[in-house]
């Protein structure tokens, strides 16, 4: 009897897991905002194995499919904070050494922080974390999912998103034109040295290949005893691999973008100049005074991750934000700049203000659809993860947010958040 009871209890305990594993889910929504496409009224989203299997108005749903009723609600892809500090241990944010492109942000994360669920509850399903601003070149950033896992490996969507650099960021609120110029030249120098390094490495590889060939010939001859010892080919000098240069070489080979944080006009222009000179993929980060050189940015191939939209997110007063203008995002996107919005907040928990940042950008002139795209699909595209997240499309991850109203409506409440089809947040109080 007791055993039976225990069995029943156990069965009930495991039932949800068993069923959640394989079962398909269908979300029947009021309005679906796929972002990549026009809104779908009364749309259905079919989720299978954590991926979006089908999407549209007339989707056939089998009887055994679990249905989430989102009638009258808005459904959109999970939002992305492209300037997050979530999970990042403050001390691990910066390495004192100035050029440290080889560092990986994944080594400085604390997956146990308690703020993550709070951020997810606001519809943010992924964050991009990058090293801080105190190093000129600070290392490589990564995109993480807020799926509640405490295992960095399971949170990780993609590492090596970009190498992070900073030009002209003030320390202790002191900045000088000369100091900012020095930053620029140090980064330039690092890239030049990397070019030389690449050249030397190629040369070494050629020599090594030649040596290998000669050596094998020599070895053959030696076996046949048809050669003198003096003919033994000389081994080229050993080439010392340099991890910093290797990481930067990937930038110069365009395998990974260089993300440059630049606030003031001169620094932004210097970043564009660097991208021209070295032909790498440039992501302009922060871009505070971008609105003053919008034409120049639009004319370049650079993409922009803009933030903070309002200085209220930052610890003020800061010199970099002296000419901050809340219309920055509107002006840049008007000129056709490919633009993502980030929160760039004081701490990790600030990432929950992504939708707020987008609606502030809208309030100050940015097109509503573009503002929404700037926290979803555009971010995913700039960060190179658009194959997995950023929009509701067949084949993409089922990272889905359900809201009581339009996401940029200030009083809309997030009702439910799914990551890869699993519920990570569900609103309980209906106050």
């Amino acid at each position, binding site marked *: 009897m007791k055993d039976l009871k225990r069995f029943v209890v156990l069965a009930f305990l495991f039932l949800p897991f068993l069923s959640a594993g394989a079962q398909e889910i269908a979300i029947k929504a009021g309005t679906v905002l796929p972002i990549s496409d026009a809104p779908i009224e009364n749309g259905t989203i079919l989720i299978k194995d954590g991926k979006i299997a089908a999407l549209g108005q007339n989707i056939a749903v089998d009887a055994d499919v679990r249905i989430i009723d989102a009638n009258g609600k808005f459904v959109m892809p999970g939002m992305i904070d492209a300037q997050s500090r979530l999970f990042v241990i403050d001390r691990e944010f910066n390495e004192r050494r100035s050029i440290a492109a080889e560092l990986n942000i994944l080594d400085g994360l604390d997956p146990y922080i308690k703020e993550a669920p709070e951020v997810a509850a606001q519809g943010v399903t992924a964050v991009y974390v990058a090293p801080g601003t105190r190093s000129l070149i600070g290392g490589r950033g990564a995109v993480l999912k807020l799926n509640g896992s405490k295992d960095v490996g399971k949170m990780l969507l993609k590492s090596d998103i970009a190498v992070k650099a900073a030009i002209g960021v003030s320390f202790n609120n002191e900045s000088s034109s000369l100091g900012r110029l020095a930053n620029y030249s140090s980064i330039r120098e690092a890239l030049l040295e990397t070019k030389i390094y690449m050249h030397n490495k190629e040369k070494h590889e050629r020599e090594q290949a030649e040596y290998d060939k000669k050596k094998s010939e020599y070895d053959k001859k030696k076996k046949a005893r048809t050669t003198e010892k003096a003919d033994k080919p000389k081994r080229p000098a050993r080439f010392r691999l340099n991890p910093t240069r290797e990481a930067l070489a990937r930038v110069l080979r365009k395998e990974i973008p260089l993300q440059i944080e630049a606030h003031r006009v001169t620094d932004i222009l210097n970043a564009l100049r660097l991208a021209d000179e070295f032909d790498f993929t440039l992501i302009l980060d922060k871009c505070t005074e971008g609105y003053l050189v919008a034409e120049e940015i639009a004319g370049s191939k650079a993409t922009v991750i803009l933030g903070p939209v309002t200085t209220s997110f930052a610890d003020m007063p800061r010199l970099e934000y002296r000419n901050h203008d809340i219309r920055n995002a509107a002006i840049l996107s008007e000129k056709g700049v490919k633009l993502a919005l980030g929160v760039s907040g004081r*701490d990790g928990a600030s990432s929950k203000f992504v939708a707020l940042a987008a609606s502030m950008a809208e309030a100050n002139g940015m097109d509503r659809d573009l503002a929404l795209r700037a926290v979803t699909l555009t971010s995913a595209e700039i960060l190179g993860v658009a194959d997995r997240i950023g929009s509701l499309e067949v084949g993409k991850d089922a990272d889905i947010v359900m809201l009581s109203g339009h996401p940029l409506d*200030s*009083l809309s409440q997030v009702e439910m958040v799914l990551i890869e089809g699993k519920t990570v947040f569900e609103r309980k109080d209906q*106050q």
Partner: protein
Amino acid sequence: MKKRRFLSFLVILSISFCLTSFGNEPQVIAIRAGKIWTVTNGVITDGIILVKDGKIQSVGENVDVSEGAKVLDMSGKNVMPGMIDAHCHIGLSLDIFSEMNETVAAVAAEMLILDAFNPYSDDVNKALRCGVTTIMLAPGNRNPVGGLPAILKLDINKANDWVLVRAAGVEFSVMNEALMFDREPTSRAGLMELIREELDKAKEDKDDGFNPTRDILKRVVVANKTAYIWARNVDEIASAMAIVDEYELKAVLVAAEQGDEIADMIAERNLPVIYPPLLLSSRDKDLKRAGRIAGNGVKLAFSSLAPKTDLCDLRTSAVLAAKYGLDKETALKCLTINAAEILGVADRLGSISEGKDADLVILNGEPLQLTSGIEMVMINGNIVYQRQEE
């Protein structure tokens, strides 16, 4: 001929008037609006606000518009009273902390913050763009006895009387920020004792010659002027309340973020709270605090503490508080009438009602929607900001 010249002179005069300041002439303006958020008397749909000599003459659905009135057609738009930032530090130099705090003397009662204010600062125009028409310019929180805040109307380039109150009450701080390692007091108990000593001296009213500190503190202990007391954490709020109880002060709690934890005690004492910007606190439960404080019957107003946060985010505080549980109607009051009442200027500001200053904000959507843009701002019936269409 002479007449014509006079006429052309008049025309030029009126044009130049129009160019320098819209409608500076003492005429009647009728604002036709889609929604009027009067704050004290509900929302009027398709109403009219009649403004005469800078004051609101009447407001309602059926208001007689005389023939000479200049009609501003804002049908489809929302009108709300000018917002009041109950505590900020704008127009001071960038090195804000040395501008608003006296760091050598702990007691700086006679410090008039208005002396540090730059009326030509761009901050003023920025505030107007965001629909903030009145501010309390306050000293910082690093002096136990901190000086005299001012209440300013921001039509600085248009009027002479933009200083509404030159010295409104006295600021105190029982925050840990008021404790510095290189000057006394260095402990909370020392800080409390210092404030008591100063208040006792003022209360005693001994005639020992010129003593500006005593004369100013007499205003709060004798003349019942408002004491603005900075206190963020529960313990700081408790300290503030101790002083309030002992000296029977009329007081306002400034930046009392954790007030929700002892909201009943604050309500018992009838102490209003000037709430710090919600974007400063980022933990989720903090965003619910403002709603909980007001829910306990405490009168609440918002502040930007600019440049700590952007002054434009005064409205963001109200929106976030509303999203996290503050009653929507109250949220709007916190931006307007509550702030006016707390600052003691509700006879002139804070609502759209007869006899009050025509300080109005016209938005293209509801006030508690961040995406609603501010189209026009008026102070005393004069347009001080108008959104340019690109």
